[in-house]
């Protein structure tokens, strides 16, 4: 087996880890330590951090719909890849089968669109 293709990625991982450790470590040693309230808070892009969703309530259920849409098209793409690399051999048969697959998922898309699943309010 040859994992050689992944050696650069592994090297990148190692480099990133080393860099992180190095910069965190060096700032511990040489950096000045002056704390104030804002510095001790969790970083939340300028939003006031809170232990619960904003308003203390639940998130609207449409987030769930968005997540479902995402996962379904994610799965579709997963199947597109092996199809694409064998496309030349599969010929018309593979093409038609894939069209059927995509067509069915597209029906889902059309349905969600018509039902207002893509509107945000």
């Amino acid at each position: 087996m040859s994992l050689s293709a992944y050696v650069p990625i592994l090297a990148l991982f190692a480099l990133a880890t080393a860099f992180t450790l190095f910069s965190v470590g060096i700032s511990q040693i040489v950096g000045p330590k002056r704390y104030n309230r804002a510095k001790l808070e969790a970083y939340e892009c300028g939003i006031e951090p809170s232990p619960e969703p904003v308003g203390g309530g639940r998130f609207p259920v449409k987030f769930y719909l968005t997540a479902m849409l995402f996962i379904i098209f994610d799965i579709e793409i997963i199947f597109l890849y092996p199809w694409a690399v064998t496309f030349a051999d599969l010929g018309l048969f593979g093409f038609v089968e894939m069209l059927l697959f995509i067509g069915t998922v597209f029906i889902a898309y059309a349905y969600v669109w018509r039902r207002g699943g893509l509107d945000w309010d």
Partner: protein
Amino acid sequence: MNGFTIATPAQVLAIDVRLPDLDYAAMAPMLVLFGAACLGVLVDAFAPRQSRHTIQFALSFIALTVALLAVIREARVGSRELTADVALAIDGPTLFLQGTLAVLGIVALLLVGERALEKGGPFVSQAAIPVGSEADRRQAREEGATEVFPLTLFALSGMMLFVAANDLLTMFVALEVFSLPLYLLCALARRRRLVSQEAALKYFLLGAFASAFFIFGMALLYGFAGTVSFGGIHDAALLATTSPLLLFTGLAMVAVGLLFKIAAVPFHVWTPDVYQGAPTSVTAFMAACTKVAAFGGLLRVLYVAFDRARWDIEPVIGTIAILTMLVGAILAVTQTDIKRLLAYSSIANAGYLLVGALAFSKEGLSSAMFYLAAYGFTVIAAFAVITLVRDDDGEATHLSRWAGLGREAPLVAGVFTFLMLAFAGIPLTSGFTSKFAVFGAALGVGEAWPVALVIVGVVTSMILAFPYLRVVVMMWLSEPAEQSPTVAIPGAFTSAALMVGVLATLLLGVFPSPVLDLADRAAEFIR
């Protein structure tokens, strides 16, 4: 390794791409239903709201009829083959069960499509609205979802695929295709929303567990046999180069998934809650069609893949069958809700079906298939009657509300009496002939386990007769309560479903031989 670079011609040549032979005629019943379900989704997306119900019902009805005709055509040709690269087995049991599913599906569809009993139909349009909220009150007045039709078709097509699946992977996909719509349908009851939501959630969570067991067992069986096809597992069991422990653990886990679906003890706990909470027409659909599909799958797994392990699995599944019959029958006696009573009766009936299946003979197979068809018609008709007995809060399912129903509505009470007698196994009903067939098949084997199972079966049938007869006595001999429920006048659809169910129960009891012969001729799996 360079899977993420574009394949060079040399690599492409190394891969053997044989295209599978697809027998479209044999797959037609499933393809028609899949196609119709997709069309149904499009109808829901684009058709105007007022006409959706009509279009959806007509579409589903036509699709099921065409599917039935396709099954009949295939049966006439008499094809016996593996198709779609051995993913599907088109053989006698497949065609018999697919035909049964199509017919029962049509009858159940009539109940699902009924809108005469309640304004807007028996379903609501959105499942997850919190009970008691403003939106919930509003939706109670609105028209129900028409997605129930495509969902029903999805479920039925999954079931048809399930009974034909010839490997565990196809079976798993089919299992999911028929389970997912059922979870959703359970959550859509118009009345008693909270119970309905609870039913759906319980069914979904436990069903997901069962699916997880199934797929883990599949992995172990793949480890054992190196393939997931039933024929391959059968061959590997003969050679037994790997540890048989792997085989048995895998089988046990796959069996958990299947026994959950047929509601065998100890995997039955969801059944009463789900049967009670789901819309009654959906309960009827589940009780009849899920039983057929799940049992068809179990029969194929046992008879095709594991027939060599018969002696080892007989004690385990035999014990499960005994427990199923006992628990179903005894707990049915204690029930005070008619839908829960029928749920426990359905559990007990799963036990009787297992008696037939464990005969491991042609007779066992054919009698189990006959039982599935006969039970399906009776149970749909019984739930159809339940949809008719109503008060202001929807269906009056508590048994005390049924007291004195015989005086209020002698015809409906008479029909229900007949159905209860059929469940109890009184001669001249299909309940008698089907029980007679499975017990006869088990006795015909003449070994210890089947005989023991038959003894338990007869004893529990007697126990089970008690709750049925109590309902009958209550309807005819008790005084009606202060505010007795009214019996709604059934719409054309419910009437038709009732008529078919009752007639089938009667005919299969009086002249069972044509269907028995059909099941007998069909009772041979191919590998």
